[in-house]
């Protein structure tokens, strides 16, 4: 069952044609990864899905509903949350306040409490630092916070923009373990990554994006074996 259907989307930054007829689908329960070089349009794709950018043409459907008329914050209500590029944590707010903002639109206090417990058990470090101002966290901890904050929305679909960026290799491993764990508990994930090696290990399917267009689409296994992907994104000759 397709949860997210992006159909022939064209997005512009002013006059720059950033997405040129991009289509992709994400099924319920999947991890789908979008790999591509810098400037290929990966972040633009996520910003278009989340409603921060509006496509000039084409449609984004979530759970069989066209998102065109909804604003970014309303799309969160529908069940789409985002771990933004560069983590986007609120550095002057405490860890607790950041997490609580993730559940901003919710008023089911019991559910929010449960989700706090869930996030704190997933990232015990965040519990230790809950009263600390988020700007004082390390890069890895900030990534945990951004991920935990997106989980606090209790999303059906989680968009993740380069969660491994700027992290030490050991932290990258643990982030991908977490992604796997979150998916196992039932959250569908669309993962944008430059680290194609790790992304293709955790994902079920993958899309390869080049200058605003999907050039390749296959199961993660097949993509790992694909000569072009090996050469361009996995650094193998």
């Amino acid at each position, binding site marked *: 069952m397709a949860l997210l259907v992006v159909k022939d989307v064209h997005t512009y930054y002013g006059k720059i044609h950033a997405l040129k007829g991009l289509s992709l689908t994400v099924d319920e329960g999947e991890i789908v990864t979008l790999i591509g070089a810098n400037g290929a349009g990966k972040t633009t794709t996520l910003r278009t899905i989340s409603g921060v950018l509006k496509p000039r043409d084409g449609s984004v459907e979530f759970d069989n509903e066209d998102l065109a008329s909804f604003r970014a*914050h309303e799309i969160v*209500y529908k069940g789409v949350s985002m771990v933004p590029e560069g983590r986007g944590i609120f550095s002057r707010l405490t860890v607790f306040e950041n997490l609580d*903002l993730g559940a901003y639109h919710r008023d089911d206090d019991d559910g929010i409490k449960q989700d706090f417990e869930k996030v704190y058990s997933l990232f015990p470090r965040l519990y230790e630092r809950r009263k600390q101002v988020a700007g004082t966290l390390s890069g890895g901890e900030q990534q945990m916070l951004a991920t935990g904050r997106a989980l606090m929305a209790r999303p059906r679909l989680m968009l993740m923009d380069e969660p491994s960026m700027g992290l030490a290799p050991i932290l990258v491993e643990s982030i991908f373990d977490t992604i796997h764990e979150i998916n196992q508990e039932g959250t569908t994930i669309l993962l944008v990554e430059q680290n194609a090696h790790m992304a293709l290990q955790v994902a079920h399917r993958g899309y390869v994006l080049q200058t605003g267009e999907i050039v390749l689409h296959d199961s993660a296994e097949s993509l790992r074996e694909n000569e072009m992907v090996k050469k361009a994104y996995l650094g193998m000759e």
Partner: protein
Amino acid sequence: MTSVSEPAPKSNRSFNLTSAQRSRIFLNIIGIVILVLLVWRIYIVAVDRAYPIQYWAFQVINGLVLGGVYSLIALGYTLVYGILFMINFAHGEVMMMGGFAGFFTLQLMNSLGWSDGTPLQSAATVFFAILAGMIVSVLTGITLERLAYRPLRGAPRLVPLISAIGASFFLQYTALLLFGAIPHNYNKPSIISGGISVGDTGIFISYTGAFIFVAGILLMMGLFFIVQRTKLGRAMRALAEDKETAALMGIDVDKVIVLTFALGSALAGAGGVMLGFHNTVMRFNTGFIPGLKAFTAAVLGGIGNIRGAMFGSILLGVLEALGPSALGLPTEYKDVIAFSILVLVLVFRPTGLLGEVLSEKKA
């Protein structure tokens, strides 16, 4: 790495100062000269005039009251700046509109005989005047946001600033047209008329002043509570850091911006009525100078910083009250003192006294 070009700039740097460093040293020298001259002048005047302590106490109290009014207005500047990085130069006029609403409420209550009626009736008069001021200012503020600022949100920062100056004139001359150029006398309800002497020290505290100070503090505590403890406040602080991410958290950015304007305007409306009580008159251009003063106070404390706005306002109020006497100038020069402070702060400490925020990504 080229080994040839590496050492050259290094040796340059150790012998010659950069132009930024040079101008900073130059500024510091000027600053010290100004400081010495000021201290010298204050010393001479103090010896020469030898005002009694009661006089200074009177001025300090006056300054605190004025500072209380300034801070109610200054908070509006700082709240809006904190979120939109824009100076709402029409904020003084938003306050003036509230002041007029207070004036008409007082007229009405006076005609009903409540203004000088029983203490309860008189207190209710004060309450309704302030409430009316807050309501009208809130309506003015959010209309302004909707018509003059929201359509320009994506524009370069100078554009909404010009729009704000235009809105300021628009509101001033609307008031001129509606209410005329004559000063309107505020009917001070009996409960805040008069005052008490503190023992036999000769220090006199007016009820109006005491009321303004206490009510101002209460309103500011309310604001502080909203910003620090409520969901709205948390959303405001998130928005101040990053609007796009805030929207991705499910925060309705437009709504929070409107509520920010509403909060700032409500305080300004209360401030306008209090200013009316303090000055006893209200005119179409009453908002202009206090608006600029409150802006000065917000810059003095560090714009975008709530604590800074309160601190800067109280400090400015006191400096303005003490300044003319301390420097031996006529009291009409108090505006010169206030705006000299604005210039000095902008030159020597543009981030304000409590402002470290600006140095991040706001500047």
